């Protein structure tokens, strides 16, 4: 984002976490409330990024391992004669999906709780900041009108 910009900027989805990173603008006269909001958003972004990048990587890795072990059990190689990667059909993969979901259930429960908490906190702070800004603008306008 350009240096002169006074807005937040959002980027393309991350390769691993699929979340879009945000670069937050720090205004020169940032109030404590605004700083709390920005820091909360930054922290949330970091938490989400960490969780999903790790989770997606684990998914792909375990999927590879599953395919490998199943192919080995069937006596097939990872690649067939033409050099392409051998894959399992949907029904065979279904076992993996079920297993993966139940293995990660508790992890998801924890993440869900954290996510909801963070989401509500951030939105509430946004509301507070918006209210304060609106009141400030109203007072400034009144002052101007008065003058």
């Amino acid at each position, binding site marked *: 984002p350009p240096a002169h910009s006074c807005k937040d900027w959002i980027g393309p989805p991350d390769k691993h976490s699929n979340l879009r990173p945000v670069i937050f603008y720090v205004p020169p006269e940032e109030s404590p409330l605004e700083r709390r909001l920005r820091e909360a958003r930054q922290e949330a972004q970091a938490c989400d990024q960490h969780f999903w990048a790790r989770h997606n990587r684990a998914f792909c890795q375990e999927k590879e391992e599953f395919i490998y072990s199943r192919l080995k059990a069937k006596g097939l190689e990872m690649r067939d004669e033409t050099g392409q990667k051998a894959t399992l059909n*949907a029904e065979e993969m279904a076992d993996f999906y079920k297993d993966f979901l139940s293995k990660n259930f508790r992890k998801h429960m924890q993440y869900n709780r954290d996510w909801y908490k963070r989401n509500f906190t951030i939105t509430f702070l946004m509301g507070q900041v918006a209210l304060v800004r609106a009141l400030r603008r109203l007072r400034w306008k009144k002052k101007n009108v008065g003058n």
Partner: protein
Amino acid sequence: GLFVWHLKNTGIRQVPCQFVHLCRVANARFITFQYFNFLKRMYVTQHNKDLSQRAKPKSDSVASPFRELQQLDQEKKVIHKIRPISPVHQPLSETSSRNELREMKSAAEAEGSVTPVRAESKEDRQWKEMKLRLDDLPGILARLSKIKLTALVVSTASAGFAMAPVPFDLTCFLLASLGTGLASCAANSINQFFEVPFDSNMNRTKNRPLVRGQISPLLAVCFAASCGVPGIALLTLGVNPLTGALGAFNIFLYTCCYTPMKRMSIANTWVGAVVGAIPPVMGWTAATGSLDAGALLLGGILYSWQFPHFNALSWGLREDYSRGGYCMMSVTHPRLCRRVALRHCLALIGLSTVAPVLDITTWTFPVISLPINLYISYLGFRFYRDADRSSSRKLFFCSLWHLPMLLLVMFTCKKSFLEKEDKGDLLGGNHGRAMEIRLP
């Protein structure tokens, strides 16, 4: 071919193989399925399967505008998936890109050229200022409120209104439709507000406004409140309190029960089916002011319909659900998934037979609807027995036309309330016409 060569050179192992694999399997049926699948995902988001009904043949006209939109989206998505070629193992891209590649293949075959879209996708990969542009706002809010899905919900409510055995009141009808529409917008917005990181990780939902940062969460909540409050107020004051209460309850059920439950237990499907069943009940209570057997029957028909529809759809989305952490029957209890779908197909036959008993329709309704109900039950049975992609697809596609047709047939077989009045007179009334005719 070009892509395969390019990718092979950059050393990605999986993607070229998927391409070749993809080229082999791509055929007309597949393409159609992918289009429809994507279309249906629009209606039947895993989060929104409740609001996936189509009331009348209106659905046909709704289907085609989607295709143009979605084709572009598909191509856009795919182009920018292929571009960031890195030697690093792309984690999620394996299957999602496989899906996207399929869609691209199908889109390319249909369109013939993907070049015009490249500019758009490049833009999509750039950093964007998080500033709300007023001219974008209507489009953003439409996507936030899932406007097309809302339209379908409103048509279901209209079907409920139309089936009610009372004289048609246009004002009431319009107020009820508007109120239901606003309530649906509110519920959908809150749903998206709750699901941002999960939506980012699923192909179907990753272009939503909150995911892309086009709108702030605060604004999304404010929009939801500014739709929900007037919507429910309109229903309560402009129609009747019962409809308002049902609307408010449905919003609560959808946002506070169904949405969190999706990630906790497979029971979410049943809750979602109730959410889908309530709009026609609301339509009925808007017309009659009371919750009688007819309303419950209509709700029951929609409730049962949800299962073959959603279970068949979810059969093909197991990977995304598994990775995203969604607890769906198709992943955790596949046999139950198929059994429930079949069970509810058969229930539809039963419910159609009950309709004339409750004086909602004439006896021609169960007779005329029997063929389509039997057909969907047959497909439900095939899905139960075969448990494969092709049977799930067939069942899903059937459900798409089955519901509008069933509701249409129901409407044409609706028992005119004049008939009922006469019947009442014959049976015991001291009322006017019937008696006059009988007197010598």
